């Protein structure tokens, strides 16, 4: 394999990995920026997305867990990947709305630490529910047959990357663009942005903020759900994936700058590329590299790459 093909492969792998981080980080970032709420259960939403996607797209054989012990050996609707990609965001959106209504609202006036603790507890509960019912062993979530090989396009066919990864990058780009346009150029976005700046003033003007906020949370959740569906087939599927992806997602938000969609995208790309390049060169350092970059960014620019300098802590 010639060098430039190898370089392009690494680049595309990095972008794809970054895309997953971006989907999670954009959601986390807009929730943190507008609602000022730290959601440690964001990884659990990714987990829900993956399992929901798996059960919608395929029929799987269960090998462990309570469901299998109760005599259910095959589960899933087997609708295929496209319906799963369309249905899952709505499912997780509704889960997000419920979470906002019954968890975020009651904790709005509690200290930050309580918010973190309760969402952390929620993440454990969700993870354990999946573990109890589906078992802790990895479930097979293969990439769809039509997206396994390299795409049959003249130039790209030579690069050994499955088309699924291109779809991941494409879907992420489209969704993030939609969210960006929604926040920057619609009345809804205007209210959300105004509420971020000065919620009291917005409410004095007679605009109810609770409704846009619940929608923002739902959108963030739906993005995590999409990340779960597109990211699921690229990694083993087991109940701990949510907790594993949470930390890099948080770091993406922090180095990009809280509340900044562009920052989340930049952070995600930076992380994805770093990881892919290190995997290809010094693979032992692949994970450590992420944290080293994060530490460096925080030392030089504590507010994040594209974040505004904070006024109040």
């Amino acid at each position, binding site marked *: 394999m010639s060098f430039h093909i190898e370089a392009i492969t690494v680049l595309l792998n990095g972008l794809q990995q970054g895309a997953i981080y971006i989907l999670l980080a954009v959601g986390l970032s807009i929730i943190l920026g507008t609602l000022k709420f730290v959601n440690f259960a964001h990884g659990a939403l990714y987990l829900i997305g993956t399992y929901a996607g798996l059960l919608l797209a395929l029929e799987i054989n269960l090998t462990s867990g309570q469901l299998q012990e109760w005599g259910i050996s095959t589960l899933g609707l087997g609708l295929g990947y496209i319906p799963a990609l369309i249905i899952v965001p709505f499912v997780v959106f509704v889960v997000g709305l419920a979470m906002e209504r019954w968890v975020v609202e009651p904790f709005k006036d509690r200290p*930050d630490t*309580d918010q973190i603790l309760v969402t952390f507890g929620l993440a454990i*509960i969700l993870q354990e529910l999946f*573990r*109890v019912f589906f078992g802790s062993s990895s479930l097979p979530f293969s990439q769809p047959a039509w997206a396994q090989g390299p795409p049959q396009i003249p130039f790209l066919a030579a690069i050994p990357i499955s088309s699924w990864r291109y779809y991941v990058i494409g879907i992420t780009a489209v969704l993030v663009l939609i969210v960006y346009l929604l926040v920057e150029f619609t009345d809804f976005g205007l209210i959300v942005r105004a509420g971020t700046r000065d919620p009291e003033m917005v409410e004095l003007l007679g605009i109810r903020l609770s409704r846009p906020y619940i929608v923002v949370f739902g959108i963030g959740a739906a993005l995590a759900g999409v990340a779960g569906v597109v990211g699921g087939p690229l990694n083993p599927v087991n109940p701990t994936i949510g907790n594993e992806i949470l930390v890099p997602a*948080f770091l993406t938000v922090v180095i990009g700058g809280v509340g900044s969609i562009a920052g989340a995208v930049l952070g995600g790309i930076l992380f994805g590329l770093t990881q892919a390049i290190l995997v290809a060169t010094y693979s032992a350092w692949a994970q450590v590299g992420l944290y080293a970059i994060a530490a460096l960014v925080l030392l030089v620019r504590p507010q994040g790459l594209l974040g505004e300098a904070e006024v109040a802590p």
Partner: protein
Amino acid sequence: MSDEPAPASETEAEAGVVADAIGIWAPRGNEVRVVAGTAVVLALFPFVFSRMPVVSELLQGYQSLATLILIWGIFALGFDLLLGYTGLLSFGHAAFWGSAAYAAGIFSQNVSGSPILMVIAGTAFAVLLAWVLGFLSLRRGGIYFAILTLAFAQMMFYMSSSPLAFLTGGENGFTGVETAELFGIFALETDLPSVLGVLLGTWLYLFVAVITLLCVALAYRILNSPYGMVFRAIRENEQRAEFVGLNVWRYRLMSFILSGLFAGIAGSLFVIHGTYVPLASLYWTTSGEVVIMTVLGGTGSLFGPVVGAGVYLYVENIVSGGHPFDFIAPFWHLILGLVFVVVIWVFPRGIWGFFRDVRDFVTGGEE
């Protein structure tokens, strides 16, 4: 107080001499009562838990779990210093626990297997690490602190999982622990002689219990000193503490280092107890476990977190094995999660706070 030495009776003068001789080590206030009470509980606990005729059969406890509970108890005690008293939530304490365990383990293999030296080595490493990570994480307050501590602890995890695998054993964990005899005489896993053997069990338990007692005394002293008062002042109102002229940042860092110290002691004991360091001891779920223990037991109290550690480990080790009900076994972690959320939601003061409220209700008021 006047500068003139007041005329004193002979006995008072004598007491003064004794106090001078032991200086700052002399007990103050309630310390004697607290430490003596703790000592009695520590002395009875393993017997009641694992050997007493009826109770231990009900509990299904065993000696090594009793030791483990004390070790995690020290960890949670130190964690509460940070969360309950200074009001900082760290999600990175696995870094101190795990790296102290690795440091003590590697120390035992290469330098000396003396348990006391192992604890000192592990703790020293954890304190230095806490200094560095605290310095970095405290650059941003509030919610960022939790995220940053989490991130740096994960960095330690990945460091030991592959780049440092030649030292730590990577995925397999560190297996080369060589613990020697205590003071070169007493093998830790052997039973204590005569009555002590029935009461306390092994030398290891005695060793851990003595250190636990010292930790309780140290924590109590810190929390009831003016220094500890500042921690609480910062938790209650950071701005006001700043206005009074206190250097909030420095106190926070010191609180972080102190809790790293306790985590280091506990981590070193953990490796002596288990003679093995699993890689997972650095993973962030370990940080999560100590968070759960502390909150479950009750933040902002000295003994609450220790009780929380006991409850957590009991559920993790006994209930998960199908005791008292068989069907409950696979759900143990789920149940812990549910209880944890309920505690945060409706009872932020935890188990210890609950019992205090009950006591106040029965005795009819505050102390």
